[in-house]
């Protein structure tokens, strides 16, 4: 499948996967008077991209690699084969990657929101791009994987590369909040889209940095070249350890203000968005 076209589908705000109901902290920032217009919003989006955006992009790239590895492992196997022959092999790895996302998400409210979005994305994507990797992920984290983990796995199932998965994560980390601000503050939608257009180069940079964080972690005897699915450790003794090593340098940038906004949002009795 053409990864470019799949990337467009995956990052389109019309993708029916529940994303429209999340503001990424913007609703609370508006309530507190922290975001009042396009100037504040521009700073908010830039900060969000540099922190949560980068972390989610890297997690999405990592998940995309893992899903692609699962697919190669599963190739040639009978789809009805018992779980120990391949697909289920991924369960502990998916749990581990999901735990990596947990460890990088300080706010319980954000973890909850990320799992809700991940669960809904997985539900939608399993009908759009059915794959053994998505089934394995659903089985590994039945309460719902973190959104970037789900996004990366879905991207792989749709035929995208890890860099494309990272780009989709970076993109949605700013477009959702931007749309929420348009709805909440009645901002000129063209002005807000100009902000997004100005961020476009930074989105590409974020995706590249996300992939580089994976490659940085490859042991010296590996080949830390480009972020490509072929280069992950594959199935071998110590596969689990090899993947964990690969995830060692995943970024963990924190954004305390976003954490506080997410927690504060939950206490707002008049909230319109889930997060």
């Amino acid at each position, binding site marked *: 499948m053409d990864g470019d076209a799949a990337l467009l589908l995956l990052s389109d705000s*019309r993708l029916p996967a*529940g994303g429209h109901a999340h503001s990424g902290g913007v609703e609370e920032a508006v309530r507190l008077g922290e975001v009042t217009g396009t100037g504040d919003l521009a700073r908010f989006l830039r900060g969000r991209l540099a922190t949560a955006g980068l972390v989610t992009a890297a997690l999405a790239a990592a998940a995309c690699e893992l899903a692609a590895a699962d697919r190669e492992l599963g190739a040639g196997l009978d789809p009805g084969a018992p779980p120990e022959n391949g697909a289920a092999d991924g369960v502990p790895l998916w749990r581990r990657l999901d735990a990596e996302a947990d460890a990088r998400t300080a706010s319980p409210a954000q973890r909850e929101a990320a799992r809700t979005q991940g669960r*809904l994305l997985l539900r939608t994507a399993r009908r759009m791009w059915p794959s053994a990797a998505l089934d394995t992920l659903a089985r590994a984290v039945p309460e719902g994987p973190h959104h970037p983990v789900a996004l990366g796995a879905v991207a792989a199932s749709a035929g995208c590369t890890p860099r494309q998965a990272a780009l989709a994560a970076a993109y949605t980390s700013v477009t959702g909040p931007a749309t929420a601000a348009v709805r909440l503050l009645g901002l000129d939608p063209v002005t807000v889209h100009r902000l997004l257009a100005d961020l476009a180069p930074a989105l590409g940079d974020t995706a590249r940095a996300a992939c580089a964080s994976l490659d940085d972690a490859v042991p010296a005897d590996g080949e830390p070249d480009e972020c490509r699915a072929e280069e992950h450790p594959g199935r071998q003794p110590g596969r689990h350890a090899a993947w964990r090593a690969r995830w060692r340098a995943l970024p963990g940038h924190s954004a305390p203000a976003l954490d506080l906004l997410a927690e504060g949002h939950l206490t707002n009795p008049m*909230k319109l968005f889930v997060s």
Partner: protein
Amino acid sequence: MGAHHDDLHDAAEPHGRALRLGIGGPVGSGKTALVAALCRSLGPSLRLGVVTNDIYTTEDADFLRRAGVIDPERILAVQTGCCPHTAIRDDIAANLDAVETLEERFGPLDLVIVESGGDNLTATFSRGLADRQIFVLDVSGGDKVPRKGGPGVTSADLLVVNKTDLAPMVGADLTVMSRDAAAVRDGKPVLFTSIREDKGAHTVAEWVTRMVDAWRREHGEPHRHALPNAAQQAPAS
């Protein structure tokens, strides 16, 4: 159904699950009152679940909980990010998740009611979310509303015109509303109610009961079964 099955159904596999009933309509027409009335009338005979889509967080869900007509845990609230129609029509993921969560926790259920957030005359439920839908109007919106049509009025399986007790006060002619609704609804039923006076909305409850019975005849007795979101490939034994 498995991951490799061509699953292009409008809604989740209907066999052996609850009927999903959407209730939509403009703000203030009496949707929540109708849900409460249906819970009162049908609660003794049917296993129920309710999903609400409030504009502001859990207002309607709280109203239902306070009304004491259904176990509060059987009500789930979905937030819609300023776009109630999106959540029932264009992106139904959160509502489906809520419906299946109820079925998972309390199933098997006979009927899951999904109440939309108050919206406009064009807001209808996706067939991927609701198997049947009721559109609720009230007479105080004016007796021209049925004539204006819109997908809610024309396509809902049942049109309910509520607050008939107010008709004389707002100068609404029920005969006109009835005639106009019939003209645009192609024979589909219309019921006039005053839920303030008939707390069980009995005529509507009878219609819903007939729908649930027909659903059960067609798709079998609801039973617990693997849900789409759960792991689908059972280990070979």
